[in-house]
């Protein structure tokens, strides 16, 4: 019989999973080795990513130089592009000279602005990083809080309302959320500025006000996903035997929730946070456009319109590197949080 006796909740009556066989703890060197493996893997992924980004130029229809130079370009302009891309040389030579540049911080020269791409990207990066950081913090805080609310009040009104909100949140395009927020809070009620950006070094208050709406728009879907994940994993954890053991020791509901349930639920949450950060970075491109934030995303959209290949490649590469780093960090957190995964 189930140790809880007869229970009204069907969740408690699921068959017990077979307990895992007891394992000896892997010593610290094992932990270091697994970190080493992950670093190596991340480096390999970086190589694969550079190949992919470089390969994007192969997708250009027709003669790349002519196509990139645009209509009515002078032969000199076409020739300049041909030289910069190293067209005519074998592809691997092109790749190595490009990658060599990347590793030295040289991302090429913009066709349109005629300035180094790295300068352009670096000047835009603080905007995008502010926005992404703001959004991910908001998503994590509100998503997890809402998920805990749902998990502890499963089936009750608060859970139903929260779940409906998050279900809608996942289904709504982030840039549309941005547009609606813009209409309501900026154009109608004039609470927040509609567009633009102030660097934090100039005016922190203004910086904050400019980022609130775009961050909410960007955080909505990620927060909703986190609410769902928190709700399902925490409510599963709360029905576990070891939670009852802790309660039988006299630990309060609150302590059990914030210490035991959260730590046990953290590994899958870390995974979701990692994945959502990647999604969020992609989404920030369009949200930046809605709020006219001069970030990397806006730069990328402009580069597509202007056929400015070096900028586009740089932005795509940069985002992929962020994702690789985030995934590496997520893996690491997962390993540290879950004593059983230390293999």
């Amino acid at each position, binding site marked *: 019989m189930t140790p809880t006796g007869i229970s009204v909740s069907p969740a408690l009556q699921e068959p017990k999973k077979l307990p895992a066989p007891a394992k000896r703890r892997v010593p610290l060197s094992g932990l270091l080795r697994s970190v080493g493996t992950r670093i190596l893997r991340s480096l390999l992924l970086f190589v694969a990513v550079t190949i*992919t980004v470089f390969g*994007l130029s192969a997708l250009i229809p027709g003669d790349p130089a002519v196509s990139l130079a645009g209509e009515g370009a002078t032969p000199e302009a076409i020739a300049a592009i041909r030289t910069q891309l190293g067209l005519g040389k074998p592809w691997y030579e092109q790749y190595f000279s490009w990658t060599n540049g990347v590793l030295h911080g040289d991302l090429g020269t913009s066709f349109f602005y005629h300035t180094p791409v790295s300068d352009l990207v670096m000047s835009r990066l603080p905007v995008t990083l502010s926005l992404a950081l703001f959004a991910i913090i908001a998503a994590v805080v509100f998503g997890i809080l809402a998920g805990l609310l749902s998990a502890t009040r499963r089936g009750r009104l608060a859970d139903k309302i929260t779940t409906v909100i998050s279900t809608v949140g996942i289904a709504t395009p982030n840039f*549309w959320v941005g547009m609606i927020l813009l209409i309501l809070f900026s154009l109608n009620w004039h609470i927040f500025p509609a567009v633009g950006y102030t660097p934090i070094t100039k005016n922190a208050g203004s910086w904050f006000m400019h980022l609130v709406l775009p961050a909410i728009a960007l955080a909505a879907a990620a927060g909703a996903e986190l609410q769902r994940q928190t709700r399902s994993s925490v409510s599963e954890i709360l029905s576990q035997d070891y939670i009852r053991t802790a309660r039988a020791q006299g630990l309060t509901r609150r302590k059990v929730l914030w210490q035991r349930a959260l730590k046990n639920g953290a590994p899958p949450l870390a995974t979701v946070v990692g994945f959502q950060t990647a999604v969020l970075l992609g989404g920030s491109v369009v949200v930046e456009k809605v709020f006219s934030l001069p970030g990397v995303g806006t730069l990328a959209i402009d580069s597509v319109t202007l056929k400015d290949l070096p900028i586009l490649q740089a932005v795509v590469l940069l985002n992929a590197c962020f994702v690789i780093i985030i995934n590496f960090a997520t893996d690491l957190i997962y390993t540290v949080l879950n004593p059983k995964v230390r293999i």
Partner: protein
Amino acid sequence: MAGLAILCILAVVAIVAPWITPYDPNATDLNTVLLQPGAPGHLLGTDELGRDVASRLLVGGRVSLIAALQGTGIALVIGVPLGLVSGFFGAWVDKVIMFVTDALMSFPALLLAMAIAGILGPNLTNAMTAIGLSTAPRAIRLVRGSVLGIREETYIEAARSIGTPSYQIVFRHILPNVLAPLVVFAAILAGTVMLIEAGLSFIGLGVQPPEASWGAMLGSAFTYISRSPWLAVFPGVCIAISVLALNVLGDGVRDSIGKKVRR
């Protein structure tokens, strides 16, 4: 099953859309630009060129739904075979495929799709190819995961032990079992694809004017957001309802088959 009902309604509307629009969705009338919803003859108002919003929503929905189908289809056509091969044969084949998958998943799907679509040139087919390519890795992972779960089952061992050829095991035993989680995944992926398509069309990389899709309508509404904010409302609501229906359908199927499929 509310999700299924909504999807059926959307599908029917999308199919008959060209015949039920009150106006030609691309007919401009500069005498009636930016009319408010409820204006005589234009239930949901008109856009900046005097085109009937209701008509464009109907036709745009058709475009958006077909686009979602296309993108999902491409992702599955690429993802299912590779996932099957990766999961079934394992060893170095699996390692290579999984490495490429991981590398592709390092790119935010929207950004990768934007780059590919931007380079191929802005039109809907290119956009959907780009989205399909960018989301295919998720399909590979899902199918591979399901195959790995099934591969160790006793009946597969049994089939193998009596000398059943690999292709027969894959098609007769494994594929049918992968199907259930795949249906769930496809529904949820279609929602994701729809969201990405809306984003691409919003920034002008999807369907080209004067054709409409919900995302493209939001793109042009954005220009007039301070003068005619309602233009931004309806297409967004339509996207949200469609994606919601797909997600609810996916969750419903998952719950009814009682299997866990990662989003």
